[in-house]
Structure formats: structure tokens, C-alpha cells
């Protein structure tokens, strides 16, 4: 009897609970075609989800009443989120129109103007890598996500084993990251020491989207934004808790574990605390990068392996939709062997211990918006170098590179124009030493560069917003100081450098004006043309200003008086959309570079211990002409199959070269810039279906000149690297919370080589398994 009473009570409670629950019904449509969108993922909070049927309909039942955020995602469409208040017993019916996402003109970007704008409203060429594209690309590192952007040249010779990579564009030298600005959440991560960027330290799961602005962006961002600006924007939490845990395994016994967790205290409102945590660890046995001939000759050559891990954290508080504070931190540590081991336990290797901390305050009051960022980036770089030549040589390079500063911007929205201005302060410094362990030498170098930047920009809309004009100007003033190059206890390893021993390198300063004027006319929402002029610059890097030492081809002498190099860029472009499904764009640019820095012979020579070698100095000595063309087409074949094709041509030539020494036989006049493919093309297909989602990407990399002299290289035995084609594939499938993905990079196992004859990893297969919630 007692049991029956209990059953009745329990049944009553359960029934009451069921009866008190509510339902959400809905239908999804394509905003442009008004056709139903099937198989899209629909989520309420982080627990309940479903998939739309063939008619685009979905139903979520047995939901407790309360505040929720409904989220809908599907490849080819922009993510949809809406806050809802579900009452008791309510059956909420929704009719939702999803925006096709690949038609990126509809997307809002911030990088080009420091204000939020649709891409189609900005008279500049901009490419956006959307969250869906990030999911569909088989990228191991962040730079590889950019590989299929028109005209973007990725230089990563050894895949994940590369200790450095460069992403360049617009016909600029493929090895020089310093000519393209890279930012994470609007803050530069190009280091002042060498202009380089550590592309290995971010986990792609943390990236929300990447904005690529082509052409000089120095009118807003100052130095480095010569060829363009890349802004990697990280995710901001939207739910009370969300996350992803995964492990993957791949070629060369590569293993990785990673997680990303985030949450908000009050997900249904615009204010409150939010946070995220992320980490990854990866290790790999690696492979022999050296050529077979080198392996035969050098018994100390070993595989180039890797270990790396990173941790990130972000906390923030939103006062309301437009006002908030955010603090983020990052730690990264790697250990990448570079393929030779004599006596040291790890052999030759490189480590980058990176610490980054940033704070942001942003707000809005009526028509005034502001944004203030503080940043501190410290990279402790360590290189162990050992080799056996005449005898055993072992030394370490220890370099502390620090970049810190404050960036601020304010914009005011007038009726038909937005005026933006700001002040940026930055200090970059390097404090480095080469410590020899097989001789007594220690070589020190150090230097600091302070930069002050002031900018103003006006965005004007006329003729019922059909005509848009952006005018901007930035002034940068920089001061180099506290430079020194010293040698302690020199032996034959370094005695030859004593001439350049100077504990008090000459201070120097420079300034740069960076104007920009761009105009566009929009004939209709499907057609627009634009024209733009912009001037960009790249400051000299500290490494060239305060470090002397051996480089390929001779001995480099520091020059603290190096000045920036400049690029004047003229550009025209047009966008057109046909039949709703085909979007095309074309851009043509012409650039003249002044004071480009090249390593040139001073006319003197030095005995480096292996005979006389030329003394080389980075100098502002050449004028460069670059012109090119970029074409892109996106076609939505069906709601589930998207094609992208693009092609880029560039012609990069030195027009005038003034040697430092009249007797220098080297004349680069008429030579082509090295490491720049004249032709780049790619074709991508993204197919979403019930069985498995597939992304296939093919890329053609044209020939590139091996060296500045355009001469036959002793190792490559040619003056150009050969062209090559790569084909990548990613297949993915989700089973509710569980997901799996198979990535195959370089399916054709194409082998390509760097200037030392070292080979790429070839086909690289990774299988990932994880949960998402």
C-alpha cells in the first residue's frame, strides 16, 4: 500500500513536471531563396538540440520555461542566435531565415576601419575566413587557415615542424613576415626584433574568424601593415558553459590533446562575467628533413621532432551590450628539433617561451565609441646549436624579445560620416646573447625602439549611401636607443667581429606619414566598384639595427640608422553577384616601393674562419615595382555544396638598386623579388550532407625565384623553385555530442624543398575524435 502511495505521488510529480514543460517549433528558410534549410543544427542552451528535417522543420519538446538562447548553425550560412523567453506550457513557433554565409559581402568586419562595417561597404579588398570555413579546413596551424585566401602566400617549409612561418601577400617577399601586420583581436603580434609572428601558438578552436585586409593599412595601424593586415578574432562566450575536448593522432606518430571551455554567468542578458580556458599539447616523432645527400654525408642528422603546449585564459565583464572589460593571457612553450644531434640530449632545437597578457576596455555613449588596449608580449627564444666541422661547436642563442604598449581609438558617428582617431604607444626591445660552450665567447646584442602613432580617419557616405569615401592619415614617430653589440672573451669564433664591438650604438629616430584615400560606388546591392590609394611602411627590425653576425652569403653588420621602407599602392576593384548564387570579385593593384631594405655588400670583406667573406649590411637602397591581379568566385551550387575558386598574379621586380659601394659587382636592378610565386590559384569545394561533411581544397603554387640575384642556387641547382600542386581533404561527422574528423593534407604527397634542400613532410593524415557541448 505504501509503495502504491509513493508511486502515485511520484507519477503525479512527474506528470506535473511534464505538463509544465513547453515546446519550440520552427521552420528554417534560406533568406535569399526562401527554400527550406534541412539538416541544420539547432541548440537550446548547451543541453538540448535537434536537426531540421527535409522541409526545414524542427521541434524541441519538454523544455522547462525560462530564458534561453536558441542557436542555429549550418555550413554555408551565418550562425543564428536569438534570445527567447519561454513561458509555462507555451508552444513557441518560429520562422527563421538564415543568411548564406559564404557570401561574405554581408559580413561585418572591423579590421579595415576600426569601426564595424559590412565588407561590401568598404572600398578595399577584404577576405573573411568564417567559422564554417575554419571548421571545414584541414589546417594544423593558424597560418594554414589562410592558405586558400586569394593571393596569400604561406611559407611553412616543414608543416607543423616549422619553428617559423610567414604569411605574405600582394607580391611581397615570401620570407618576410614584417611586411604584413598580424593581429590577435586587434593587437599586433609582429615582434619588433625581427617582424616575425609565432603562428604556432594559437589553437584554431579558439578562433572565431579571421579578417584579411589587402593592401597597405598603415594609415590606421602604422608599421608592418605594408602588404596588408590579418586580424585573428577569438571567440567570445555566449552560453553558460560550452566546450570541446578532443584528441588526434596522425602521421609521424603525431599526437595532440586539446580542450576549450567557455561560459557566461548570465547568458540570456548582455551583461555579466564571461570566461574561457583553452589548452593543447602536441608531440610528434617527426621526420628527416635533410636531403638524402646530406644524410649520407652527415651522420649526426636526425629527425626534426616537436613538443609544444599552450594555455590561454580570458575573463571579461560586460556592463551592457556595448561596454565591457576583458583580460586575456596566453602561455606557449615549444621545443622543435631542427634535425641534427651531436652530443646534446635534444640536439639542435629551438624554443619559444611566450607570455602574453592583454587588457581591453571598450565602450559606447550615444554616438561616441572608444576602445583602449594594453598589451605585453614576451618571447624568450632559445636556440641550441651544435655541429661537428673541424671540431665540436656548441652554443646557445638566448634572446628576450618584449613588445608592450597601449592602443586607443575613439570614433564618433555623425549623420553621414564616422570620424575615428587614436593614439598608439609601443615599445619593442631585444636583449640577446650567444653563449658558446666550446669556447669562451659570449656575444651580446640589445636595442629598444619606442613608437608613437597618431591617426585620424573619416568614413563618408554620400548619394544615399551609394558613394562611400574613406580618408585617413597616420603619423608615426620612432626612436631607437639603448643599442649595443658586445663581445666578451673572444676567440677565433668571434674575434673577427671585434671591429663592430660597440656598447653604445648610435641613437636614431625617424617618422612616417601614411595617408589613405579610397572611394567606392555601389550601383546596386549586387554591383560595386572601388578605387584606393594608400601608403604603407615597414620599420627596420631591431635584429638588423643592433645585431651583427654570420648570415648566408657573408657577415651582416648592424646598422642602427636604418630607416623604414615605404610602399605606395594604387588599387581598383569590382564585385558582382549573378543569379543570387554566384559572387565574383576582381582587384588589380600597382605598387611602388621606396627605400626597400636589402642586404648588400659594403665592399669590405672579413675572415669568418673559413676564408674571406663579404661584409653585408641591411640598407635602404632599392625601389621596387609590384603589380598584380586577384580574381575570386564563390558559387552556391545547392544549399549544401559551395565552390570557391581564386587566382592571383603578381609581378615583383626591383626597378632601381643603388649599391653601397660603386665597385660592388652585385646589381639587383631588374631582378625579381625572391620567394614570391607569380601565380597562385586554388579551388575548394565544401559539401555538407547527412552522411559526412566534406571539404576538398586544391592549391597551385607557381614558380618562385630562389634568391635575390635570380641566380642558379648551388643546392637547388636551379634559379627557381618548381611549381607544385597540393590537394587537401577534410571529412567530419557528428553524432550528437561526439564528433570525428579525418584530415589529409597534401594527398598527392607532393615533395617541395626549401633553399637548403630540405624537404616538406609530404602527405599528412590526422584523425580527430572528441566531444562538443
Amino acid at each position, binding site marked *: 500500500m505504501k509503495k502504491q502511495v509513493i508511486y502515485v505521488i511520484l507519477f503525479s510529480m512527474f506528470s506535473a513536471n511534464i505538463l509544465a514543460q513547453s515546446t519550440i517549433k520552427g521552420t528554417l528558410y534560406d533568406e535569399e531563396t526562401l527554400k527550406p534549410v534541412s539538416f541544420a543544427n539547432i541548440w537550446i542552451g548547451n543541453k538540448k538540440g535537434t536537426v531540421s528535417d527535409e522541409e526545414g522543420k524542427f521541434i524541441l519538446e519538454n523544455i522547462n520555461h525560462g530564458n534561453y538562447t536558441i542557436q542555429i548553425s549550418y555550413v554555408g550560412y551565418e550562425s543564428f542566435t536569438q534570445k527567447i523567453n519561454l513561458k509555462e506550457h507555451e508552444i513557441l513557433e518560429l520562422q527563421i531565415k538564415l543568411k548564406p554565409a559564404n557570401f561574405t559581402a554581408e559580413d561585418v568586419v572591423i579590421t579595415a576601419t576600426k569601426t564595424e562595417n559590412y565588407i561590401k561597404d568598404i572600398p578595399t579588398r577584404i577576405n573573411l575566413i568564417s567559422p564554417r570555413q575554419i571548421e571545414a579546413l584541414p589546417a594544423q596551424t593558424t597560418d594554414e587557415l589562410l592558405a586558400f585566401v586569394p593571393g596569400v602566400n604561406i611559407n611553412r617549409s616543414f608543416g607543423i615542424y616549422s619553428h617559423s612561418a610567414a604569411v605574405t601577400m600582394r607580391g611581397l617577399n615570401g620570407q618576410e613576415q614584417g611586411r604584413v601586420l598580424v593581429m590577435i583581436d586587434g593587437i599586433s603580434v609582429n615582434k619588433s626584433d625581427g617582424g616575425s609572428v609565432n603562428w604556432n601558438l594559437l589553437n584554431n578552436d579558439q578562433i572565431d574568424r579571421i579578417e584579411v585586409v589587402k593592401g597597405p593599412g598603415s594609415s590606421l595601424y602604422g608599421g608592418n601593415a605594408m602588404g596588408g593586415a590579418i586580424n585573428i578574432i577569438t571567440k567570445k562566450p555566449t552560453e553558460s558553459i560550452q566546450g570541446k575536448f578532443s584528441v588526434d593522432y596522425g602521421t609521424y606518430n603525431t599526437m595532440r590533446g586539446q580542450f576549450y571551455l567557455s561560459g557566461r554567468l548570465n547568458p540570456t542578458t548582455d551583461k555579466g562575467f564571461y570566461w574561457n580556458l583553452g589548452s593543447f599539447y602536441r608531440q610528434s616523432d617527426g621526420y628527416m628533413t635533410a636531403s638524402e645527400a646530406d644524410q649520407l654525408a652527415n651522420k649526426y642528422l636526425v629527425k626534426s621532432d616537436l613538443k609544444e603546449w599552450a594555455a590561454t585564459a580570458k575573463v571579461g565583464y560586460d556592463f551592457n551590450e556595448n561596454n565591457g572589460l576583458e583580460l586575456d593571457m596566453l602561455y606557449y612553450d615549444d621545443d622543435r628539433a631542427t634535425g641534427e644531434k651531436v652530443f646534446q640530449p635534444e640536439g639542435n632545437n629551438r624554443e619559444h617561451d611566450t607570455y602574453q597578457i592583454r587588457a581591453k576596455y571598450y565602450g559606447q555613449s550615444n554616438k561616441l565609441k572608444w576602445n583602449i588596449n594594453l598589451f605585453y608580449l614576451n618571447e624568450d627564444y632559445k636556440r641550441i646549436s651544435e655541429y661537428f666541422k673541424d671540431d665540436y661547436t656548441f652554443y646557445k642563442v638566448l634572446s628576450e624579445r618584449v613588445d608592450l604598449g597601449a592602443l586607443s581609438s575613439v570614433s564618433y558617428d555623425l549623420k553621414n560620416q564616422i570620424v575615428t582617431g587614436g593614439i598608439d604607444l609601443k615599445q619593442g626591445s631585444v636583449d640577446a646573447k650567444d653563449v658558446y660552450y666550446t669556447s669562451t665567447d659570449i656575444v651580446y646584442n640589445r636595442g629598444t625602439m619606442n613608437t608613437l602613432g597618431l591617426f585620424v580617419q573619416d568614413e563618408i557616405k554620400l548619394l544615399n549611401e551609394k558613394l562611400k569615401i574613406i580618408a585617413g592619415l597616420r603619423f608615426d614617430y620612432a626612436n631607437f636607443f639603448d643599442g649595443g653589440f658586445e663581445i666578451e672573451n673572444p676567440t677565433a669564433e668571434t674575434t673577427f667581429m671585434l671591429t663592430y664591438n660597440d656598447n653604445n650604438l648610435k641613437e636614431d629616430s625617424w617618422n612616417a606619414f601614411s595617408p589613405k584615400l579610397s572611394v567606392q560606388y555601389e550601383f546596386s546591392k549586387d554591383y560595386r566598384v572601388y578605387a584606393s590609394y594608400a601608403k604603407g611602411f615597414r620599420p627596420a627590425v631591431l635584429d638588423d639595427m643592433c645585431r651583427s653576425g654570420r648570415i648566408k652569403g657573408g657577415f651582416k653588420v648592424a646598422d642602427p640608422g636604418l630607416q623604414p621602407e615605404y610602399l605606395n599602392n594604387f588599387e581598383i576593384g569590382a564585385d558582382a553577384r549573378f543569379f543570387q548564387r554566384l559572387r565574383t570579385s576582381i582587384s588589380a593593384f600597382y605598387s611602388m616601393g621606396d627605400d626597400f631594405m636589402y642586404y648588400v655588400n659594403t665592399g669590405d670583406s672579413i675572415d669568418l674562419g673559413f*676564408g674571406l667573406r663579404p661584409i653585408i649590411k641591411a640598407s635602404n637602397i632599392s625601389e621596387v615595382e609590384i603589380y598584380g591581379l586577384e580574381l575570386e568566385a564563390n558559387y552556391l551550387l545547392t544549399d549544401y555544396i559551395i565552390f570557391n575558386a581564386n587566382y592571383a598574379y603578381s609581378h615583383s621586380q626591383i626597378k632601381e638598386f643603388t649599391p653601397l659601394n660603386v665597385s660592388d659587382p652585385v646589381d639587383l636592378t631588374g631582378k625579381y623579388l625572391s620567394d614570391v610565386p607569380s601565380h597562385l590559384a586554388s579551388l575548394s569545394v565544401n559539401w555538407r550532407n547527412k552522411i559526412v561533411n566534406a571539404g576538398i581544397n586544391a592549391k597551385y603554387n607557381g614558380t618562385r625565384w630562389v634568391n635575390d640575384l635570380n*641566380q642558379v642556387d*648551388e643546392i637547388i641547382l636551379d634559379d627557381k623553385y618548381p611549381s607544385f600542386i597540393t590537394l587537401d581533404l577534410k571529412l567530419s561527422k557528428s553524432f550528437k555530442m561526439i564528433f570525428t574528423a579525418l584530415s589529409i593534407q597534401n594527398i598527392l604527397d607532393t615533395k617541395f624543398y626549401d633553399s637548403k634542400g630540405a624537404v616538406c613532410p609530404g602527405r599528412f593524415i590526422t584523425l580527430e575524435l572528441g566531444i562538443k557541448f
Partner: protein
Amino acid sequence: MKTSCIIAVTALLFLFTQCTEDENGSSTPFILLKTGLSYTNNEAYVPVGGQLKFGISAVGDGFEITNLTVKRKTDAGSVTELDKGMFIKKGGLDTILTYYKGYADQETWVFSIMNSNRDTASVSMIVFKGAGSAFGDIDFFPSITIGYQNNLTLPNFVDVNSGLAYSGSTVIGNESLIDLVSYYYLSSGSSSPTISCPSYNTAKSYYPVMNEWAVQNSTVYDYYTTDNNLISTNQFDAAQNDSLLINGYQPESVSGTCKFCFADKVIPFKTGQGKYGLIKVIHADESDTGYIEIAVKIQK
């Protein structure tokens, strides 16, 4: 959730404050010179050209010995006779070095070691100039022809003590005798007939078989004297004893390879066994299938 935020921030602050640089305590390496009839002793009188023989014993105090330096100090200055990188893990260093007495009335010889903790130790010895001179006899090989790496007919491997050249097949069993090989390549775009030795890594890329040799001799060549033509062919031809061989060799500018060995260059060298010599280049082709012809004078 607040707790997780605090933990994350604390963990990252901890990471930010950690020291990453290698830090070791100091150590006390030790070096001594052996004494006895077999070695040159402190304050010994040795005639010009007489052999100096130093027995060295050293330990790294728990760290590997990574460098041995030998300096000859006279009123005229200091010359680094040896600055050798090494990595001796266990048992320390035990070696014998031979040099020859110079013209100075008094020479102070300083022997230093460094360990992998960059701690150092030194010991020194004074040697006075004795009466007379003791320059020794030499062997002369007027013509040795050596094929470059892609020359399939001429021998590639040379024993400078005997003046014999060996081919790929005849060198088998004689690897420990080989002091010199030659190859041709473009060095930074410049044509370079080159001579080298079995232990030099680059030479092994042209003759990979040398990787397998149990003994890979280290001959070092004075490239500074060679590059600057400090010894003429007439001086080479006139040398009757080892005076020019010893005094023409500048130990601070030596390498296991010598580039740009064109005809009429004279190259001072020192073999792995400590013998001094001179090479005169008679002929040098500028093609990797060609050959180089040399004359050699070497201490007996």
C-alpha cells in the same frame, strides 16, 4: 565557475613568473701537465725548432669538458696554438700535444680547459730558448695527382706521409692513413678547387664512404696564409728543413677545408698526428670531373 576562473588566472600567473633560463651552480674543473722524461718540463731549455711535448690531464668536475685552449705567450704577443671544441663526458681528458720551439727567448705556454658549465681552469709552463737550432728533416713528394669527386679514373684519397694516393677500392684497409681529399664546387657562386680531410663534414658529402671509416683523420689547413699568398712557390721550392713548415703555419686561421686552391697557391697544414707540412698547387681543374696536382713537403 568563479573558482575555475581563479584557478586559471593563478595558474597563468604562476607560469608567467617562472624562470626559464638554465641555471647551474659553479664547478671546479682541474687541469695538470704531466712531468717526466717523456714530456717537456717547466723551465726547460729547448733549441729553436726543437719539439715540445706536453702531456695534459683534465677533469670537468661533474660537467663535460667542452674546450681545450693552448696559448704561446712571448714578448711579441700571444698566439692561440689550439682552440678546440670537444665534449668529453666521462673520465676526463688525457692527451699529448706536440709543438716546436719558436725564436723567442722565453715562451709561456698556457693550457686552459672549460666545462659545459662554462667554468674554466688553467695551468702554464715556461720554456726557454736553448742553444743552436733543431729544425728537422722533411720528405718531399713533387707530384701527387688527385681526382675530384666525379673523376672516375684518378684516385681521390691521399696519405701525405707517404705521398701515396688511393682509389675507392685500394683505400680499403688504408683508411687510417688518409689525410687529404679534394673536391670541386661553387662556393657562393665562386669557383673553388678545394682540399679537405676525412673528418671534415662537408668532405663527406662528396665522399660518403668516409662516414664509415673507423679513423677519420683531421688535417687542418692555414687558409689565411693561403688566401693572402704569404708563402711563395720559390720559398716552397727552397725549403730544405721543417723551419718554413713550422713557422709558416699560422694556427689562428686554420680549418679542415681550404677553398680556392688554384695553381701556385702554397698551403701550410698540420696533420692530425701533429706533423707540419706545405702543399704547393701545381694544377687545378675547375670542373668536378677534373683533378688537382700538388707537391707536398712534410716533416719526417
